[in-house]
């Protein structure tokens, strides 16, 4: 495959895409109802879900209409009562402009519009609307009859908390928006819809709060969303990867959550939320690094307690990354740092172990990751059994058989437990844990510091939508750092983070 072939392939692809898009816009509605019906039928060829029904007006059998809808996407009650019943019983005899009468008087549907654009009509049918065609008209009426089942609102499994609201997003975009909107009894929440994905044309909604959003970030979000050229969007992660900064860093630059309260909190600090139809996971940008350590619960519990929890999470983050490497550095390079009595103990423990420390720790960490991964994917009951097997077989048996030194199990245990403290950083934690471990195995304490330095430079270097992820972390201004490592009480958080918003003042003094 040379460059030429690739270009040819690209051209072919472009042409087929163009054909697909032009396909619909080249069609025009005609005055004859039969031809319009035929057109719709040919567009939805081989799709037996499409239903067409003729309705005749009782006052004048010469007046009739067709309704076209997609079975399963509609609410039959609306079609029966508010469309079929009203059209057939309405007295249309002698009305001059039947189309306008039907549009304004007959149809008892909350949302309706007229349209001539074939593309719009097709999109409406595909998304559950009903299209009403009248004879001798070059336009149609699109009626909102969407209605399909979705999962009810429940607490998200991945973000369970003890205090605070328990609702979570569902797969329906409209429901999700309503979950956000019902927290604002003001016109502040803005929503902008767009369709992304050439085959699925998935509904994507960008939400922000007009008075606080940072316009640069907002424009950047729209710019990146408009640049997307993809086949299908089935989850918000599709968008996440496409709008992300081009960067090989393993740390996330977009925040994801399934909780409306979290998203509203982010919006109120000037961030932009992106909701995708068909998934409960909502994105917000930009992401600051400290957000990885914030939990929604932090704001529902006492400030001092949540500050302590946050500090513990940060310690956990460093522990899970550094513990194995530090153990290797001390155990095999800098034994002088261990008190002598302890070192003798450790040496006795290690006596029978067949593998060198460095290899042993890599094997144990991989086994731990295996256990964790299987535990997550298994049904709960199997998962419980698995953890027992893991603890007994890997833990006790390995030590008793002198395959593994006992201190090693403590190290792996600390690493594993503290990794659960920062679920949002899971992937980056694993990558950096092994990177620092590799450096340490070759260079001891020096390698440990060098590996850690690479990670820290990576964090300092990161940008999310033009905002540095550690922006103002180093500031001495109390308002800048009140919600970073420690959370102060609401009395003290007078300002919003200034680099995220145009409107810094959050509240009055409350004194």
């Amino acid at each position, binding site marked *: 495959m040379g460059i030429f072939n690739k270009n040819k392939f690209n051209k072919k692809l472009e042409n087929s895409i163009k054909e697909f898009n032009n396909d619909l816009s080249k069609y025009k509605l005609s005055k004859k109802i039969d031809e319009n019906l035929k057109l719709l039928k040919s567009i939805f060829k081989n799709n037996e879900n499409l239903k067409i029904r003729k309705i005749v007006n009782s006052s004048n059998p010469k007046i009739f209409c067709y309704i076209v809808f997609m079975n399963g996407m509609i609410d039959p009650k609306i079609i029966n009562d508010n469309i079929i019943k009203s059209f057939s019983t309405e007295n249309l005899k002698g009305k001059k402009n039947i189309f306008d009468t039907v549009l304004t008087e007959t149809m008892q549907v909350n949302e309706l519009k007229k349209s001539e654009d074939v593309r719009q009509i097709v999109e409406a049918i595909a998304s559950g609307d009903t299209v009403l065609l009248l004879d001798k008209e070059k336009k149609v009426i699109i009626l909102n009859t969407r209605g399909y089942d979705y999962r009810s609102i429940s607490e998200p499994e991945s973000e369970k908390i003890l205090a605070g609201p328990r609702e979570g997003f569902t797969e329906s975009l409209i429901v999700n928006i309503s979950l956000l909107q019902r927290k604002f009894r003001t016109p502040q929440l803005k929503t902008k819809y767009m369709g992304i994905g050439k085959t699925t044309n998935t509904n994507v909604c960008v939400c922000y709060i007009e008075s606080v959003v940072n316009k640069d970030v907002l424009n950047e979000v729209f710019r990146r969303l408009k640049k997307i050229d993809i086949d299908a969007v089935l989850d918000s992660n599709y968008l996440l990867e496409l709008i992300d900064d081009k960067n090989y860093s393993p740390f996330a630059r977009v925040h994801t959550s399934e909780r409306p309260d979290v998203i509203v909190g982010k919006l109120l600090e000037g961030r932009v939320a992106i909701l995708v139809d068909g998934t409960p996971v909502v994105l917000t940008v930009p992401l600051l690094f400290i957000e990885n350590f914030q939990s929604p619960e932090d704001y529902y519990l006492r400030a001092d307690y949540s500050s302590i929890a946050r500090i513990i999470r940060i310690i956990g983050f460093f522990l899970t990354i550094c513990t194995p490497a530090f153990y290797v550095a001390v155990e095999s390079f*800098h034994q*002088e740092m261990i008190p002598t009595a302890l070192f003798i103990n450790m040496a006795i423990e290690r006596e029978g172990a067949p593998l060198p420390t460095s290899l042993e720790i890599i094997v144990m960490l991989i086994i731990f990751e295996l256990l964790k991964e299987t535990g997550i994917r298994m049904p709960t009951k199997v998962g419980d059994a698995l953890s027992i097997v893991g603890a007994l077989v890997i833990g006790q048996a390995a030590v008793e058989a002198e395959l593994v030194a006992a201190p090693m199990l403590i190290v792996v245990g600390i690493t594993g437990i503290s990794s659960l403290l920062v679920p949002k950083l899971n992937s980056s934690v694993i990558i950096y844990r092994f990177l620092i471990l590799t450096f340490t195995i070759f*260079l001891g304490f020096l390698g440990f510091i*060098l590996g850690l330095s690479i990670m*820290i430079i990576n964090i300092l270097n990161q940008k999310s939508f033009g905002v540095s992820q550690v922006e103002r972390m180093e500031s001495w201004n109390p308002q800048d750092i009140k919600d970073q490592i420690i959370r102060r009480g609401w009395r003290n958080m007078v300002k919003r983070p200034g680099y995220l918003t145009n409107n810094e003042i959050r509240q009055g003094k409350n004194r």
Partner: protein
Amino acid sequence: MLTETVSGKKMIILLSTFMLGSTIILGGSTVLGQDSWVSVITGALWAFPIVIIYARIVQLYPNKNIYEICLDLFGNFFGKVIIFLFSWYALHLGALVLRNFSEFIQISSKTETPQIIVLLSMMVVIFYLVKSGIKTMGRWSLIVFWVICLVVIISFIFSHTGADNFDNLLPFLNHTPGEFLIDSFYLFSFPYAEVVLFLTFFNSLQRGESPYKVFLYALFITMIILLVVAIRNITLLGPEMLKISFFPSYVATRLINVGKFLTKIEGIVMINFILLGITKTAVCLLATCKGITHLFDLKDYKAIAIPISFFMVALAMIVYPNVIEMLEFAERGYYCVYASLFQVIIPLLIWIVAEIKNKKIIELKTTIHKVH
């Protein structure tokens, strides 16, 4: 080219971490024994006027780095000659610092690891830091600075657990003024005046920040920390031990012993050395890259950072045959003489020419004003 800016505070910290750099390992000058802390102060006093001149150059051309100033003042040919000399100094200094660190690591812990491995692995981090840009370097230096302060303060406090002896500071001022003068010039050229390299990217300073403030604060902060380190080393080691040890800070912290638990914490002190070494070499690498960029009229320094960092490693390998020669190069004063060309003579030349040109421009402007 879009330039990133650094706030004045971060620039101060970056300057101090740069100056602390390898000095914190080599412990400054140890020739004067118990009086070596005096030359920390007198060296800073020496550095005071030259640092003012650096700041003045920056103030005259706030939007340009020293390479651009050279091209402006001396034309294309002579400007490029000075650029070449300056980038050579940056490259050489980077190599010297790298070698100091690899030598230290070989002597202190990894006696059998080839130095090239240590050098290359350090270079990976340094290269990444330089590629991340000046803004990240500013943030990085802030973290490094706090780690250093913590380690220095902790080791200073812990040194008061029996191992130290304040009698080691006596007899007070037991050297001739000539000795003090020479020693303070040694300290002037080794950490303090090396900040001349910052002129190569001082235009990244945020608008409205005073360069005088940045230079002087950095000088002061560095002096205080070096003073603490010097006093710690003297009280722990005594003048004779101080003179014979290669890396006094490392040897000194080895003596710290808190109860029976906290012993041999020199491994922790090694953090200091590594972090500072990374920062100092990164500044040197950045200065070199910018110099080469201007020398060959390239667009972006990041593209040539890889070859230059390899070149720096290679130079660090061949720059000294062994550690004795490394210490002699510094201690016998060869370095002072060699460095004064870049630290004093070239900046003085640039400053004088810049002042004359600036005066002419102002005169020209006023005459034009009068004619109109």
